[in-house]
């Protein structure tokens, strides 16, 4: 029930918007994401846009995962030893 899905905002009229979700047009209420603009990716839950997805942060998230992967490869090269670098904790806030 807490499932939210990302979709692209393709039309907006006041607090009403239309998103493209896997090729389907879906109506959403955008009152909780006033900053979202046509073309943005937003998270949809129960007919409401609950957040505008930040493309910059999305890139960072995937970069962190890439970084962790790199560390995994490094580890594979150091047989038996444990790399204690905490690279994957880059999101510590």
């Amino acid at each position, binding site marked *: *029930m*807490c499932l*939210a899905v990302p979709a692209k905002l393709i039309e907006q009229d006041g607090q009403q918007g239309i998103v493209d979700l896997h090729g389907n047009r879906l109506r959403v209420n955008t009152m909780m994401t006033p900053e979202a603009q046509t073309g943005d990716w937003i998270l949809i839950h*129960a007919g409401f846009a609950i957040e505008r997805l930040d493309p910059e942060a999305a890139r960072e998230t995937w970069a962190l995962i890439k970084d962790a992967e790199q560390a995994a490869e490094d580890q594979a090269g150091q047989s038996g030893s444990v790399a204690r670098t905490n690279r994957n904790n880059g999101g*510590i806030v």
Partner: protein
Amino acid sequence: MISTDQSAEKLLERLRVAAQAVKEDIAFMEVCGTHTTSAFRCGLPTVMPPNVRLISGPGCPVCVTSQGDIDRLIDLGSRQDVILCTYGDMLRVPGRRGNLETARTRGRRIEVVYSSMDALKRAIDEPDQQVVFAAVGFETTAPATAAAVCEAQRQNVRNFSVLASHKRIIPAMRALLTDEEIPSIHGFLCPGHVSVIIGSEIYRPIVDEFNVSCVIGGFEPTQLISSLLCLTELVLNRQTALVNQYREAVRPEGNPRALALLAEVFEPGDARWRGMGIIPESGLVLRDKYRHFDAVQRFELSEPDEHEPPGCICGKVISGAALPVQCKLFGRACTPVSPIGPCMVSSEGTCSAWFKYGRSGHLNLSCTHANEPQEVLP
């Protein structure tokens, strides 16, 4: 089996190495039904390192709703003078007297809505009917209820009301950390979509007071494994931290508009959770200003009796104190086709996830050290 996605494989390998280095049994709890289903769907429990256990906590909104609240909802839906609008997940949850689906087959008007606003629209379209919206869900869903209530107030819609059993996750996490029956938790995988609304900073007092890490994570296999890796490495390094790995959607302060809506319409109140009893301040009750939209008041509903379906241990399952396979009814009397408890009905329920994805013998039960299952189905 786990996605063959290369990133996931690499992260998993690193998780195994970190887990091996930890040299003790550790348990993380996810408190989000979507994490439960995502983890099972990608086969994660089958490939977890043997000493790392992922416990499903009270993250499924349907499952945590007390049986009394469910009975009350079904009773209301069974009335001839009410149109009950509900999210689809509630339809088949069994109550003492059938479920909403059976009430519908008896001719009662039970309507599945996609949004709270659809329920309000039904009330506006049919002013002579009483329309009740079954408002269930965590902080992800509650702002939508608040928005509908605000709009009903603005348009003075007198035939609309809500039967609210919304829940707040932070008080439940605190309750779990102080409950001696729950196996000790070395870190939380925090609910991504609840966190979109409440933000990441709200977990900091839990990290500081209980010395337990909180990692907010996404739902893809790679993101899930990445969060578990992060939690494991924190244990390995004897650190506790608040980590936000879902930064594209979760801000430190959450969604201010959604929070403002919640604060306008609701205030925290004590709430009863299935199997966990009354947890202080863990619910959301309508403020005085909006109390006339409360279905409990409008229909003069009395305090419901609390009981559990006989034999069902959902209460223990949702708090991480028992596994679905420890329930004697699991897979026999209780299946998704004929569910006995909400954990088997809801698509996000732990019993449902175990039944759908975990009963084919792939599950690695060696990591479930707290209680040995009484029976494991073939």
